[in-house]
C-alpha cells in the first residue's frame, strides 16, 4: 500500500528532528477546541481535491467493478445485475483474445527493444565528454510531440509503396522494401508499432538512466579496472548492480505503460487485421458498439493487472528510499 509514514518523512526533512515539535506542543495545550478548528480548516483546504479524487478516482474504481456485473443499456444506464455475463461474453469474444495477444506481444517486444535500448544508449552517451546537452535535447524531443501528430508522421514513413520514406531509402540502397504496417505478418506489424513507440517514448528513460549513471562512484570502476576487468565486465559488475533499483523500477513502469498502449493502434493501423490492443478494444466496445458492460469487464481485468504491477512499483520504490 502506498501509505507514507508521515512522522518519518517529517523527521527526515527537519534538521533538528530530535527536538520536540513546537506545533504539536501548541496543539496539545489548548486541547480539543483548537484541534477541531485545525481539522476543519484542514478539510476546507482539502475539499476541492477530495471532491475531484472522489469523482474521478475513488468512485470510478468501485463503479467500474460494479458496472462489469451489470446489464447496461446503450447509454450506459444499469438495467439490473447480470452476474458474470459480461465476463462470459468477454471470454467467448475472439476479439478479446486477439487484443490480449496484441497487448502481450507489444509488451514483450517493447521489453526487448524499448527497455534495453534506452539503457544501452545511456551507458554509451555517458562516456562522451562532449555534446551532452545535444544528446539529451534530441532524445527527449519526440516525447514532447503531440502523440497523434508523431504517429501520423510515422504512418507516413511506413507508407507501403516507394513514396514512403523507409521504402525510398531501402530502394535507393537496393534492399528489399516492405509493406510495413500492411504486412500480413501480424507480429511484424506490432514490431513496427513498437519501434515507433520506442522512438517517441525512450527520451525519459535515457535521461533517467543518465542521471543514475552520474551517481555511480568512480572508485568502483577504478577498482574493477585494477582487478583487470574489461569494459563489458565493468558494465556487468559495476554499472548494472549500481543501477539495479532504477532498472527494476523502469521495468515495472514500462510494463504498466505499454499495457495501456492505445494511440499506436488507433493511428497507425486503426486496429485492423488483429492489431488492436486491449485499451483500443475498450474504446471500440464503448464508442462503436455502446457495449459499456463489456468495456467495463475488460477495464476491470486491466485494473487488477495494472494495479498489481503499479503496486509492485510503489513498494519497490519505497523500499529503495529506505
Amino acid at each position, binding site marked *: 500500500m*502506498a*501509505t*507514507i509514514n*508521515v512522522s518519518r518523512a517529517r523527521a527526515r*526533512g527537519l534538521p533538528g528532528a530530535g527536538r520536540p515539535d*513546537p*506545533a504539536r506542543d*501548541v496543539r496539545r495545550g489548548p486541547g480539543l477546541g483548537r484541534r477541531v478548528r485545525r*481539522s476543519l480548516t*484542514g478539510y476546507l*483546504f*482539502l475539499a*476541492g*481535491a477530495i471532491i*475531484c*479524487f472522489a*469523482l474521478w*478516482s475513488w468512485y*470510478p474504481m468501485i*463503479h467500474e467493478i460494479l458496472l462489469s456485473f451489470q446489464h447496461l443499456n446503450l447509454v*450506459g444506464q444499469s438495467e439490473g445485475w447480470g452476474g458474470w455475463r459480461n465476463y462470459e461474453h468477454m471470454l467467448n469474444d475472439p476479439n478479446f483474445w486477439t487484443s490480449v495477444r496484441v497487448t502481450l506481444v507489444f509488451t514483450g517486444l517493447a521489453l526487448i527493444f524499448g527497455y534495453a535500448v534506452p539503457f544501452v544508449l545511456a*551507458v554509451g552517451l555517458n562516456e*562522451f*565528454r562532449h*555534446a551532452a546537452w*545535444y*544528446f539529451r*535535447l*534530441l532524445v*527527449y524531443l519526440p516525447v*514532447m*510531440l*503531440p*502523440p*497523434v*501528430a508523431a504517429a501520423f*508522421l510515422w504512418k*507516413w*514513413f511506413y507508407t507501403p509503396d*516507394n*513514396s514512403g520514406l523507409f521504402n*525510398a531509402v531501402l530502394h535507393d540502397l537496393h534492399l528489399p522494401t516492405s509493406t510495413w504496417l500492411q504486412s500480413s505478418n501480424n507480429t511484424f506489424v506490432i514490431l513496427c508499432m513498437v519501434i515507433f513507440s520506442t522512438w517517441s517514448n525512450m527520451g525519459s528513460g535515457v*535521461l533517467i538512466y543518465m542521471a*543514475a549513471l*552520474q551517481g555511480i562512484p*568512480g572508485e568502483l*570502476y*577504478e577498482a574493477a579496472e585494477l582487478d583487470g576487468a574489461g569494459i563489458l565486465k565493468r*558494465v556487468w559488475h*559495476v554499472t548494472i548492480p549500481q543501477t539495479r533499483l532504477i532498472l527494476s523500477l523502469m521495468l515495472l513502469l514500462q510494463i504498466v505503460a505499454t499495457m495501456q498502449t*492505445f*494511440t499506436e493502434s488507433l493511428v497507425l493501423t486503426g486496429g485492423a487485421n488483429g492489431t488492436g490492443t486491449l485499451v483500443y478494444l*475498450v*474504446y471500440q466496445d*464503448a*464508442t462503436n458498439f455502446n457495449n*459499456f458492460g463489456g468495456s*467495463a469487464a475488460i477495464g476491470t481485468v486491466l*485494473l487488477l493487472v495494472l*494495479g498489481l504491477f503499479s503496486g509492485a512499483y510503489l513498494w519497490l520504490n519505497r523500499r529503495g528510499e529506505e
Partner: protein
Amino acid sequence: MSAFDAQSRTLISRAQLNRPLARRIYWVLLVATIVVFAVVFLFPLYWVFTSGLKSASEVLQSPPTLIPHSLDFHNYSTAWSDFNLGRYILNTTYYAAGALALQLVFDVAAAYALSKLRPVLGNLVLALMLATLMIPATVLVIPNYLTAINIPVLHLNLINSPMAIWLPAVANGFNIFLLKRFFDSIPEELLAAAAIDGAGPLRALWSIVLPMSRPILGVVSIFGTVAVWKDVLWPLLVLTDPTKMTVNTGLLNLTGDGIPENILMASLAIAAIPTILFFLVFQRSIMSGLTAGSLKG
C-alpha cells in the same frame, strides 16, 4: 583536453581515453553518434516541415524529393484556417491553462493541509490519494465517461465542456505526493513563528510556503501542462464537438475527412510547434523535473 579531465570517472578512465588511438576512436564515435542522432531525431521533423511545403503531386512522388521544389507556405495557411489547426491549438492551450490553474489551487491546498495542518484522519486521506497512483487513468475511462455524461448528485453533463478536462486533472496523486513531500521539508518553526505573529493558515501558505516552493511548483506546472497536450483517449471520448477538440483529437478528426497528404503534413508541423517551443523554453526544468520526480519519487 580540459573536457576529458573535468568530469568524474566513468566506465572508461581518463588515462585510457588520453592514449592517441583511443582518442581518435573517441572522436570518430562522437561524430558518428551526433550524426545518427540528427538523422533519427531531427530528420523526421525536417521531413514533416518540408513535406508540408510540397505540392499535392510532389508529396506523393516516388521516390520522394529531399528538398521541396518550391518554398510555398500555402499548405500551412490552408491547414491553419480551413482545417482549423489554429482553433485546436487555442483550445488545447485553454484546456491546459485551466487544468494547470485548478491543479495549482486544489492540489497545493490539499498537500499543504496534509503536510502542515494535519487534520484528523489526514493520513487516511493521503493514503487514499496515493493509492490512486496504482490505477492508471486509462483503465478508468469507462466509469469516468459515465460520470462525465451524468455527474452524480448534480446530474450535469460535462461532454464538450472544458470541465471534463479540468476536473479529472486535479485528481492527480503524483502532484499530491510531490507537493506534500516538498512541504514536509519546510521547517515547522517557520510556520509556528508566523502563527505567533497572527498569520492564519492561508496567509502562512501564501507568504511562507509558496515562495519557498517555486522549484516543485515548476515541476508540477510543467507536467500538468504537458499531460493535457499529450492526452488522446480521454479528450477523444469527452470532446466530440469538432470546434471543441484538442490538437490530438482534431488531427484524428481531419484524417477522417480525407485531407490531402501535403496539407496533413503541414497540419502535423503546425501541431508540433507549440510543444517544441515549450520544450525549448523550459528544457532545463523539464529535464531536471523528470529525474527529480522519478528517481527519488
